[in-house]
């Protein structure tokens, strides 16, 4: 057994396509590591995943991985149209780094997954798939969107079943990490949230990471799949959304006759825990071109 020479290892990162988000994440999503994005529906998890699947194709000199992506989706249907829309703006802003006649969507391999056992099966086939893909643009990004959907309904709420479920977590995580190590892949997972009910004490109030409580849409939530799953990922990011009602411009109060209600969605990305990132957050927006961080500058 030979120890690894740390002086010659640098962790490669895959750019998110936005310099502000990249700065928050110190370069992007790291390889040889599992990054989890936790959020309620409609917060932008899938958007980030699609965006990353495209940007992985950029050359390493521009923050990409020179790689194609394997996108395993568990929620249906797969947003092909949105991927296509994103690929248009991706191609136009990165034309010089991509081969001319290539459609970036061709480099995103999409596979549907319906259960945890099916995921295990796919994982064992993935090794040979990745090896065979070395001839073209190799696969160096695996996305699972979302991991929660595979586990939510299958298991009863008894201690025995929960134990079996958490054994599965570690098995899946172990296989993903072994793949990530062997082929220097980045693994990106999305997870859902569950509402927190009951008093904030004991197991219910268990704090994991930098944020005491996770809030989205005005509700207190916590990531699905519990403490066991939290031990299986290397980094966790949280996306929150919050509907903000603004006063309308002509000074009238909301509800007053002639007053307009102006609603705005404020979105924020938080680092919940990561071995290489400090506690930090930034706001972001979702546009036709993609997901981008915004810097709030003081006036």
């Amino acid at each position, binding site marked *: *057994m030979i*120890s*690894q*020479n*740390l*002086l010659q*290892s*640098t*962790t490669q990162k895959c750019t998110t396509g936005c310099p502000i988000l990249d700065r928050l994440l*110190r370069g992007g999503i*790291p390889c*040889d*590591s*599992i990054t989890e994005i936790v959020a309620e529906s409609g917060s932008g998890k899938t958007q980030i995943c699609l965006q990353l699947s495209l940007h992985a194709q950029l050359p390493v000199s521009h923050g990409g991985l020179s790689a194609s992506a394997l996108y395993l989706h568990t929620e249906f249907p797969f947003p092909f149209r949105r991927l296509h829309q994103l690929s248009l703006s991706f191609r136009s802003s990165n034309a010089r780094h991509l081969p001319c006649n290539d459609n970036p969507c061709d480099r995103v391999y999409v596979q549907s997954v319906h259960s945890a056992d099916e995921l295990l099966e796919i994982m064992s086939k993935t090794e040979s798939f990745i090896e065979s893909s070395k001839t073209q643009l190799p696969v160096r990004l695996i996305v699972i969107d979302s991991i929660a959907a595979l586990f939510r309904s299958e298991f009863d709420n008894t*201690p025995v079943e929960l134990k*079996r479920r*958490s*054994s*599965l977590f*570690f*098995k899946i995580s*172990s296989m993903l*990490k*072994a793949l*990530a*190590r*062997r082929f220097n892949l980045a693994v990106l997972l999305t997870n859902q949230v569950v509402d927190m009910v009951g008093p904030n004490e*004991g*197991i219910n109030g*268990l*704090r*994991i*990471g*930098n944020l*005491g409580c996770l809030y989205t849409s005005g509700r207190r939530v916590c990531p699905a799949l*519990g*403490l*066991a799953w*939290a*031990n299986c*990922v*290397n980094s*966790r990011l949280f996306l929150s959304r919050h509907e903000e009602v603004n006063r309308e411009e002509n000074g009238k109060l909301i509800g007053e006759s002639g007053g307009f209600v102006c609603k705005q969605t404020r979105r924020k990305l938080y680092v*919940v*825990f990561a*071995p*290489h990132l*400090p506690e930090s957050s930034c706001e972001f927006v979702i546009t036709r071109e993609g997901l981008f961080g915004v810097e709030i500058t003081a006036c």
Partner: protein
Amino acid sequence: MEIWRLPISASQRGKLISAGYTTLSSLSSISSSDLARESKVSESEALDILKFASHSHSGGWEMSSGNCSIFEGAQNAWDMLHEEESLVHITTSSADLDNILGGGIHCKEVTEIGGVPGIGKTQLGIQIAVNVQIPHGFGGLGGKAIYIDTEGSFMVERALQIAEACIEDMSEYNRFIRKDFQACEIRMQPKDILGNIFYFRICSYTEQIALINYLDKFISEHKDVKVVVVDSVTFHFRQDFDDMALRTRVLSGMALKLMKLAKKFSLAVVLLNQVTTKHTEGSFQLALALGDSWSHTCTNRIVLYWNGNERYAYIDKSPSLRSASAAYSVTRRGIRNSSSSCKRIKMM
């Protein structure tokens, strides 16, 4: 040579042993009258015994490191106390944390550190792997580290950050305390610190066992290794084992080997562990993973937890330290004292 090899009668031998003299070295600096008094033998017998003892010992007294005693490897408590007092600890870079640890992480012992994700286990592991390299002149061990990464949490860029901060701190110390800046200039560079960490990445439990078995040979060839960090010891054992009895055997075998390594090479073993929920009497409680039998195998156990917005460490089990908790923080520079003004060390 053991006492029982001395050409003395069985009853004399029995009296010596019951008085506590089991090694030749224990007879090396005692007078015959003291020996007679303590072992309840006559003065002349004591004289004879001492004569035999010095005869049997050819060429110099051996070191009291347990080589000559009634059982191979056994030592008497007096020798052990002397040894313990001379051990240096590995600082955690947080004075409060070092305080409750009795100076820092102890060598010759296995310390288990557990906590929820994001509390700072890996950060502490990296800090210890860097701090073991602090040279003797600054109160450190000047040793190297073995870092066994089973989860892929070790990030080189973070280790570099912590190494840089450690060197900056040493330079600061030089400037203010030593004042002879030229004479004790730090020649260490952050990349040297990285080079002194032997990093192993493990992807399955069989690899983990194989590596731990291999460590004896590795450390024999790299005698300056003074700490072995396993991050985390748990991960590969939480999958489904078809045979749970096998898992328990494997885990206890592993714990035993690590303890032997710690004692044999006088190094510190730091095992990072995860927390899990234990289902007891209808309610769920937090406990360190790997079960009850594992919890008996480590010498010391530290639990890291959140108290409000602060990170705390709590001595859960230790043969020599009292239960206490202290706040610490994870900063850009690594593990440091908590910055809040109401921090204090709580004694239980």
